[in-house]
């Protein structure tokens, strides 16, 4: 599992609040048994209704950092949402805040989801719009985002940051290590032991 310390690339701004997972990946695309191919359907309905949608805009096509508003990824637990963003090319997300399940799903995929203040998000958004080729660097070690002469602090849950930095974001390996403790815990849970 690889250590994720920084992600850099061009940035796609989508600074709206309460973007839910139904919008990120409409439910009809969940009729699938693998995550392959979900990338091309990211924001499909929003893109159809709005030809100016950033995910439709050629100048943002090769972006790897997504810039978003508050409560990004609210709604369903579908991992299809971060999967579709990741397969579209997103490697890190900066937002004012995230919905909880979505945040966990991102971390489990090795996609850092970091928060910045609304002023910083807006300012970075302005700069990216002015210069879509601007290289944005999300630095998990320094907890900073830099882009040209712009720089701001970012935040991320300590446990998620540690997991990404140490390459343990695929928690399956961690969980599997504790088989013995799992069994010991099960032995003291009343409903697994006839309520004795």
């Amino acid at each position, binding site marked *: 599992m690889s250590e994720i310390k920084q992600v850099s690339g061009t940035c796609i701004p989508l600074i709206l609040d309460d973007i839910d997972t139904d919008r990120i990946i409409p*439910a009809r695309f969940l009729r699938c*048994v693998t995550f392959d191919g979900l990338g091309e359907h990211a924001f499909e309905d929003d893109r159809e209704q709005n030809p100016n949608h950033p995910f439709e805009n050629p100048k943002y096509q090769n972006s790897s950092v997504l810039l978003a508003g*508050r409560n990004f990824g609210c709604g369903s637990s579908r991992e299809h949402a971060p999967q579709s963003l990741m397969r579209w090319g997103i490697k890190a997300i900066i937002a004012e805040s995230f919905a909880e399940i979505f945040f966990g799903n991102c971390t489990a995929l090795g996609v850092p989801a970091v928060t910045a203040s609304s002023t910083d998000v807006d300012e970075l958004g302005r700069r990216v719009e002015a210069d879509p080729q601007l290289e944005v660097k999300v630095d998990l070690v320094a907890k900073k985002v830099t882009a040209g002469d712009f720089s701001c602090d970012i935040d991320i849950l300590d446990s998620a940051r540690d997991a990404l930095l140490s390459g343990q974001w695929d928690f399956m390996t*961690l969980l599997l290590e504790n088989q013995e403790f799992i069994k010991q815990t099960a032995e003291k*849970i009343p409903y697994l032991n006839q309520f004795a």
Partner: protein
Amino acid sequence: MSEKKNLFNKVWDLHNVGTLPTGQTQLFIGLHLIHEVTSPQAFAMLRERGLSVMYPDRTVATVDHIVPTDDQARPFKDLLAEQMMSQIEKNCREFGVTLFDISDSRQGIVHIVGPEQGLTQPGLTIVCGDSHTSTHGAFGAIAFGIGTSQVAGVLATQTLALGKPKVRRIEVNGELNPGVYAKDVTLYIIQKLGVKGGIGYAYEYAGDVFDRMTMEERMTVCNMSIEGGARCGYINPDQTTVDYLRGRPQAPQGSDFDKAAEWWLSLASGPDAEYDDVVTFDASDIEPTVTWGITPGQSIGINENVPTLDSFEEDDRAGVQEAYEYMGLEAGQSLKGVKVDVTFIGSCTNGRISDLREAAQLVKGHKVAPGVKALVVPGSQLVLKQAVEEGLDKIFEEAGFEWRAAGCSMCLAMNPDKLKGREVCASSSNRNFKGRQGSPTGRTLLMSPAMVAAAAINGHVADVREMMEPVGV
């Protein structure tokens, strides 16, 4: 000794396997529910790594999201749906997991089936690859939704890596007015605390109103916790909980049941329990509530008007403007009289027998307004069977409703039941997001099943209280 731990902390501590190097808790999961949408990739991950399911008897599967509710003949007409169906059948067979498939009388929406079978019990940790898993909190369980990678983790290890949330107690005291249902209570709470208000919290619902509620009403409330941002919501177990579980197929039987009940009741938060936050509401302030926007927090009492832009914080106004435009509603207008094209009674929020009874009582002797497509979709095969025994299907059909087979149906766009174009749907489900009901421009108004029934008959949004017979004098 006074007990400071609330239920959440008691149950959490009991299931704590240890602290991971990331600082998160490794939490043992007592019941893992799975369905066809979020599990195929998880089983694929197990195969890739050569892993098996650690506790297959703590894992139960059902099918709900993609199930057609009219023609259920196999293979399904939708080949993608058929493929998902065969996949879960194959996975459950191969990994030794019990599956309630559509030929099984126990099949239905995962959050309806768990409680119905008595699988859902107080004191359990329950997860499912579905955000409305919070429903099971109605029993005093810690229950929440997870993503597919986590589904794989739970299958392989029966555990999950998780940070511990804070606990907020939400008290609603006093008496609810007639015509005000559990759905209105939960919409009201979300409106007051906001769709982001619960992030980082588990909600404990307490006070007179929840104490008096039936288990089905409690499930409606806990179901919607996630719409308020809280991944998990619960109600302390009491005699109502114990009575509901007695005799259910998967509940403890005989003398085990009494031992179980004693343990369940001991888990409830006591009078000295501590919380990170407490908020209190007055039940009499709650009216039949309807959403007007594109998040479940954008709702009003039926006698209120769509709020004006300047009543919102500066920061929220862009979203509010987007909601007006998408919904085709104007600030200051009433929702009463807004024409509906479709009405939907069903979903894991309000697809239980008490919901159907409530709606049937209102529609009896009336007709669905011309031009309205009205659906009633029981949440499970057992709900359907019970409804048929009580003659509810006949009442609905005589009134002009379509009576369907069990499934998620028009709650989300994964099966043939979908809105078309900009249709407006009065819906008893839980999400009014853009495009949620299958048309990218379709519009959803969330409300109680009784209010949906009233909308179906009037052809527009109406105050259900005007249809109810005056009670006593």
